[in-house]
């Protein structure tokens, strides 16, 4: 979480926040009413292909960019409301988890902070983090939206999770296409911009990653198992996601 605040002292990272927020908001606003799933709440998110790419390449700037971009998308799409706060935190997680879990989500994690399409470890990290970050976002938004009386958790959480997973799977093509240009030609990989080393394989990192993973999976699965105290499990899941995010 340290770098998510330290980055505000770096001009290039601030500009990256603005640019990634603008790209995401432009894609959201352009396709807002194209294929709605729950009108005003969620739609088929073409912009979903940017999620992992922004999170992995721009790190904390990508996370803030996705959060702010989602609010701007609501603002321009005319759906600004209390749910936009939930959208901010959910989308922030979608950008935050890829860069924090890339080296810490043992045994699926990569050994170095790079993307190599020929390395199975890059794929295992990408796929596992895609699923966990999508679940974490779905639990966060679903719970808040349900509490506000917008849409039932059971409906919205699954739609958001599936939407994000599909977007991220298709987004790997974008990552493959732009990784080299961003890192080597433009020098905009966040660890190079901030001149830092991301949190590596440590007990604290592994614990944080797994706390988030358990919270996310439990939150999504809670609705499928009858007889369980669903609300209590979902709230506990959110607490685990917040705790894990603070640890990372």
């Amino acid at each position, binding site marked *: 979480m340290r770098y998510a605040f330290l980055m505000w002292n770096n001009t290039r990272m601030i500009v990256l926040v603005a640019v990634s927020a603008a790209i995401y*908001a432009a894609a959201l606003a352009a396709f807002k009413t194209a294929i709605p799933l729950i009108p005003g709440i969620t739609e088929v998110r073409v912009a979903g292909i940017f999620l992992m790419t922004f999170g992995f390449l721009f790190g904390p700037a990508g996370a803030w960019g996705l959060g702010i971009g989602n609010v701007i998308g609501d603002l321009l799409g005319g759906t600004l409301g209390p749910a936009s706060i939930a959208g901010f935190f959910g989308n922030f997680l979608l950008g935050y988890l890829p860069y924090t879990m890339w080296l810490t989500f043992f045994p699926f994690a990569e050994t170095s902070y790079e993307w190599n399409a020929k390395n199975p470890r890059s794929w295992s990290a990408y796929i596992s983090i895609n699923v966990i970050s999508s679940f974490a976002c779905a639990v966060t938004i679903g719970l808040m939206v349900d509490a506000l009386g917008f849409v039932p958790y059971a409906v919205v959480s699954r739609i958001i999770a599936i939407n994000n997973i599909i977007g991220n799977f298709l987004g790997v093509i974008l990552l493959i296409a732009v990784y080299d240009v961003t890192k080597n030609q433009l020098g905009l990989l966040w660890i190079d911009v901030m001149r830092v080393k991301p949190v590596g394989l440590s007990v604290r990192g592994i614990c944080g990653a797994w706390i988030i993973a358990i919270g996310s999976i439990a939150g999504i699965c809670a609705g499928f198992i009858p007889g369980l105290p669903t609300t209590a499990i979902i709230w506990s899941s959110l607490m685990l996601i917040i705790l894990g995010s603070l640890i990372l």
Partner: protein
Amino acid sequence: MNLSIYSDDKTWLHSLDPRTKLFGTTIVFIVCLCFNHPLHTGAIALCMFALALSAGAQKAIWKLRYIILMLFLFSAMLWPFFTSGKTIVWTWKSLKLTRESILYGLAMGFRLSTFVITGLILMATTKNEEITDGLIKMKIPYPLAFAFSTALRLVPTFVKAGATIVQAQVSRGLDLESRNIISRFGKFIPLAVPMFISAIRYTNLLAMALESRGFSPDMQRTFFYEPTMTKRDWIILYFLAALLFISLYMRIILNMGVVMPGRI
């Protein structure tokens, strides 16, 4: 493609300080959350609709009429199956509809419509620059407000660049209209690559331009446009604060406007 909802009129809401409108919007959102009876949420929705008409926001509402209608219908039809009450109206196998859950569904439909209408009033009466100025005056950290305002300004540029790329690919034979959702989704990716690269090239140029002008995230600054709170702004804020207090009193102490006690 016009992305702006702002309507260039001179109504009384346009002339208010952006902070008043931001705080006012937040208070209306909280007041909405105080009740879950359709009579109360319906009355709030009606008031906000009247306010939208007086603020000249009818064009924005007309633009989003299908979203508001669908939102209302979707919520009114979905919630009755996910909540339960005491008075059973209809049952079929494990499905059950109660009077309370139907009323709750209607209340949520009104609540959602109110949220959208309130957000539209804010956007139709406040320029993007005013929102940023309001946020800065409300002590939001400057780098965050700067990123927000820069992003707002860049969105039309990127949408335009995206439209040019789409037109270039369509002229080469790319078919974006036919086939199913997944297929159309997939066709967007080859378009996203040049959009991404062209947008990201801005970053270095913009950062260099900022640094060459002495930009420093934590520096104290002065502003050309300084929003000021007038007597009218304070009167409106006091009125809204009183409204919020009354709503909370009705909900918490008198237990009024509630059809489903356990829910917000």
